[in-house]
């Protein structure tokens, strides 16, 4: 009887550690995303942040010449592999033959943080990529 209770307690602990660990990476990735990426990719990731569409924020200025990727679009995001994303975030759009308006974050974020952002983007698009 006592053994069973112990086992139960232990499995709860395990569950707690796992979900806790999961949430920590997800929370941190979201924090980084909200801080750095939403200014262009939009608060929801749909490509319409203030830099992309100033007029949406009542600022009279032309839209960004290249629209930041819609991170919610499974269709667009499926064209990218995880490695494509990693490169784009780390070294900027130019590293993947895209626009330099996507800036390099390799000296701002750690490799681990970038890895977590890639996972987070896969959550946003709800897609696996190629």
């Amino acid at each position, binding site marked *: 009887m006592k053994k069973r209770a112990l086992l139960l307690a232990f499995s709860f602990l395990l569950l707690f550690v796992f979900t806790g660990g999961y949430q920590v990476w997800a929370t941190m990735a979201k924090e980084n995303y909200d801080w750095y990426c939403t200014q262009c990719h939009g608060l929801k990731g749909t490509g319409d942040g*203030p830099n992309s569409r*100033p007029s949406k924020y009542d600022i009279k200025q032309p839209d960004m010449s290249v629209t930041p990727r819609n991170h919610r679009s499974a269709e667009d995001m499926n064209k990218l592999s995880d490695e494509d994303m990693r490169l784009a975030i780390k070294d*900027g759009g130019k590293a993947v033959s895209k626009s330099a*308006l996507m800036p390099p974050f390799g*000296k701002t974020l750690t490799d681990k943080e970038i890895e977590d952002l890639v996972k987070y983007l896969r959550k946003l698009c709800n897609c696996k990529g190629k």
Partner: protein
Amino acid sequence: MSSEGARKLIVFCIALGVSIGITATTGFAGPKEGKAIFEKQNCGKCHQTQGPAKEKTFEDQMKKKGPELWYAGDKFRKEWLEEWLANPTIIRHLKYNSITEKSKGGHPSLSNAQAKDVAAYLLTLKSGAVKEGVVKEKSSPRAKLNFKKKYGCIGCHTIKKGKKKKIGGVTGPDLSEAGKRLKGDWVYMYLKKPKLFKPIKRMPVFAGIINDAEMKALAGFVASQGRKKK
């Protein structure tokens, strides 16, 4: 005392007398007076005047109500500072620290005389990390291209296109008049030592990505924006 020494002393006394006279007639009292005004007007409620930067997390930055001024003497041009403190305009398109709300302006303003004193005070605040005379404050086609096309600075900063139109992103401070406002040597150090002035910001770190020569040229380009060509 030699006659040369005596002459120097006389010249010095005259200069001193003249400057005191000027001060008395224009009401310009200088840094000490400026500091008193700064304190009395509670400017420190929103502006940090003592370095170094202490922010470590996004939260630390979010707690700030205005840009730090502890390196104002490295950053700003005197004429601009005197003019702006009396007639403040919008520099950051969005409300400080926000990426959703447009700035409404309305910064507290000072009288012309007060502005001169406060400017004199702010210009005494320095980081000790900025060497002067390093950057040539001029535009070049190459630096402009780097700003727009190679490093995508324009994604977050506005500059002028032609006489009136502005282009670029809005989450970074407006740089279309940066040549009147910022010192090139500071801009260079801001890019080179990003953690020193502003450890937590939405701008990515470019140190280690842009080489030194290009960085100086970019700083020169920024510090020439909105200035009349000679």
